[in-house]
């Protein structure tokens, strides 16, 4: 499979603040890649660099074969990539119908049937001015304008913000159908449950650096929480092994998060004469909190 998005040591600094530090990404064609991180972790800066809206301070990257740091190619990128921004900025004075007509005039590949179907499914009122739309409606409209472009790559920044659970499920279902047709989706989200549901690859960014880059199934299969109780007090340094991500030792108990190498870790814990050893799977949310907390 080919990489649709690729970056090499991509970095961005704003004066003294390093927003993105040496990012090496590779997103494969046909995948749904989730991009997770706290507010201010560098997600939006990264997305803006990918789209050629912001110039990298150093490093480089490409989208669909176009270099992101060359001005003459950024137009091509914006023609071929559908992007739904986090702020869902739209022309407030237009009606829903007007902005749809206005937007589609720029895109020859516009999918008219899909547009009509989404207008109905999202129950968007054609005559209403954008200024008078609820937050959820705005999000739906912004998504419609992105989805109907029929692009091979969709970049969505917080695509379900402000939506109720039914609408979220609708949006995820549309994403699923688009992927079945071969579209690649790169999306950032705070809603970890929805990420777990549809993403096949997870990227986590913290303070501008990548802290996790793995297939979702691998994360689910290999990340484990290990809790062990020992006859006498233990210390963190007893557990510095390959595959251990976090260690919390309190008296006679230790709580570990392992990302791989589970068998050897359990064996090591057993050798330290643990009285009981519990191994449990971890949810993505727990992994996320662990990654972020471990560094703060």
């Amino acid at each position: 499979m080919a990489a649709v998005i690729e970056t090499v040591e991509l970095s961005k600094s704003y004066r003294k603040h390093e927003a993105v530090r040496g990012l090496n990404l590779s997103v494969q064609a046909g995948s749904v890649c989730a991009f997770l991180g706290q507010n201010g972790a560098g997600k939006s800066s990264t997305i803006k660099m990918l789209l050629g809206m912001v110039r990298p301070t150093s490093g480089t990257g490409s989208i669909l074969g176009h270099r992101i740091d060359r001005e003459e190619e950024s137009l091509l990128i914006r023609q071929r990539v559908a992007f739904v921004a986090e702020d869902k900025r739209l022309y407030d004075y237009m009606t829903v119908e007007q902005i749809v007509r206005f937007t589609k005039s720029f895109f020859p590949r516009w999918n008219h049937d899909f547009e009509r179907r989404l207008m109905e499914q999202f129950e968007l009122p054609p005559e209403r001015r954008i200024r008078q739309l609820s937050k959820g409606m705005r999000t739906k409209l912004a998504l419609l304008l992105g989805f109907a472009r029929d692009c091979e790559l969709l970049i969505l920044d917080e695509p379900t913000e402000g939506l109720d659970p039914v609408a979220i499920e609708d949006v995820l279902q549309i994403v699923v159908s688009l992927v079945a047709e071969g579209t690649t989706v790169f999306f950032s989200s705070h809603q970890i449950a929805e990420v777990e549901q549809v993403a096949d690859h997870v990227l986590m960014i913290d303070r501008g650096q990548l802290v996790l880059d793995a297939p979702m199934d691998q994360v689910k299969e290999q990340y484990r929480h290990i809790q062990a109780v020992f006859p006498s007090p233990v210390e963190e340094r007893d557990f510095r092994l390959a595959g251990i991500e976090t260690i919390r030792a309190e008296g006679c108990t230790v709580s570990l998060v392992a990302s791989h190498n589970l068998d050897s870790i359990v064996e090591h814990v057993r050798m330290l004469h643990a009285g009981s050893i519990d191994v449990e799977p971890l949810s993505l949310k727990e992994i996320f909190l662990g990654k972020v907390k471990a560094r703060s």
Partner: protein
Amino acid sequence: MFRKPNPSSGVPIYVQIKEQIRHAIETGAMSAGDQLPGIRGLAETLVINPNTVIKVYRELEQEGVLEIRHGLGAFIASRRRSRSKTEELRDAQRSVREFVETLREQGLDEGEIRRLFEAELAGEFQRR
């Protein structure tokens, strides 16, 4: 027919769907020759990634549970083809390994385990 998986359970979604299909076969809800939903159809119904459905069908095909007929879709395989001898032996080997490990954890040593196995097998064959 299939239920939505629980995405935050810690069990990968593809494993959950595989279990559902196996369960459908075991309970007789689906039997040899029955067709499974298309990749896109199942992905849309369960709102899961189509690549996950592809992985499920591919793995179940390798395990002999499904048959992929190109251009037609995925079907439940007939039972006699459902597992090869090698796979049966490999599964058995895994059960034995796990069992031996359990006995070891209970404090039995190699000789004791060996004697128990041999006694059991000898008795088993005599009873036949």
